[in-house]
């Protein structure tokens, strides 16, 4: 029981910390959201290329997988696992591992765009 509560706490702290880091970048460099997303995705991929990011995931669970850096981790991790089975799966492994996220993003966005129109904004 307590380890579940503790897991939530770790997820909150680590996830929050990654987002705060992003906010620091936004405040200091005026980076736009596209650049922030790319930067953090690459950060996750590079850390995993050195085998570091999975340690963070083992520690914080969703705190490390939910931020976009977790997506970068999946891409790198898939490629590393694929590399064990030859050059072809080294190339395709990353996208295979990340396919759930990309598929979901495309399909759900398509459905939502069919249903909804952008709302007018007053603030």
């Amino acid at each position, binding site marked *: 029981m307590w380890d579940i509560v503790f897991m939530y706490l770790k997820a909150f702290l680590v*996830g929050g*910390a990654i987002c705060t880091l992003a*906010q620091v970048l936004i405040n200091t460099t005026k980076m736009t959201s*596209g650049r922030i997303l*790319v930067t953090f995705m690459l950060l996750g991929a590079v850390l995993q290329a050195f085998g570091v990011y999975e340690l963070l995931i083992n520690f914080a669970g969703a705190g490390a997988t*939910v931020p976009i850096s977790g997506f970068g981790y999946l891409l790198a991790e898939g490629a590393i696992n694929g590399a064990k089975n030859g*050059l072809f799966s080294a190339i395709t492994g*990353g996208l295979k591992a990340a396919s759930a996220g990309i598929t*979901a993003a495309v399909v759900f966005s398509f459905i*939502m765009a069919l249903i909804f129109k952008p709302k007018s904004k007053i603030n």
Partner: protein
Amino acid sequence: MKAKTKDYNEEYLNLVKRLAPRTNEPRSLFNAFIVGGFICIIGQFIRYFLMYVFGIYGDELAGATSMVLIFIGCLLTGLGVYDKIGHYAGGGSIVPITGFANSVCSPAMEFKSEGYVYGLAAKMFVVAGPIIVYGISASVATGVVYYFINLLSA
């Protein structure tokens, strides 16, 4: 009168820099921390829920969790709520995978008025496209490097 050269003015640019209002740093950081952390708690809850209720484990669990979160992100975008969260939370709602969903879904909705092919579909990745491009490139680079490392060490 001779054509004038570019009248860039360093003094003026410094003045602008000095007078420009700054973001409220501590509050924006706090908001980003709280909202970002909260989204991760939801992610953790979904993980446990899928694990204990549906018995999903391993890689499948990670994929399923992000699918649920992406669905939530897209739904909130469609309902016109996510941008409000974004104004409040900044990095706290951009960086989680829901922010990725938002950056795919919002252009799709926005450009639907330009047609289903060249609008909705073609412009779906105007914001998130770079993530796919650099993500896949980085992944292939990593895979190839590991392949040769494996070859050499074998």
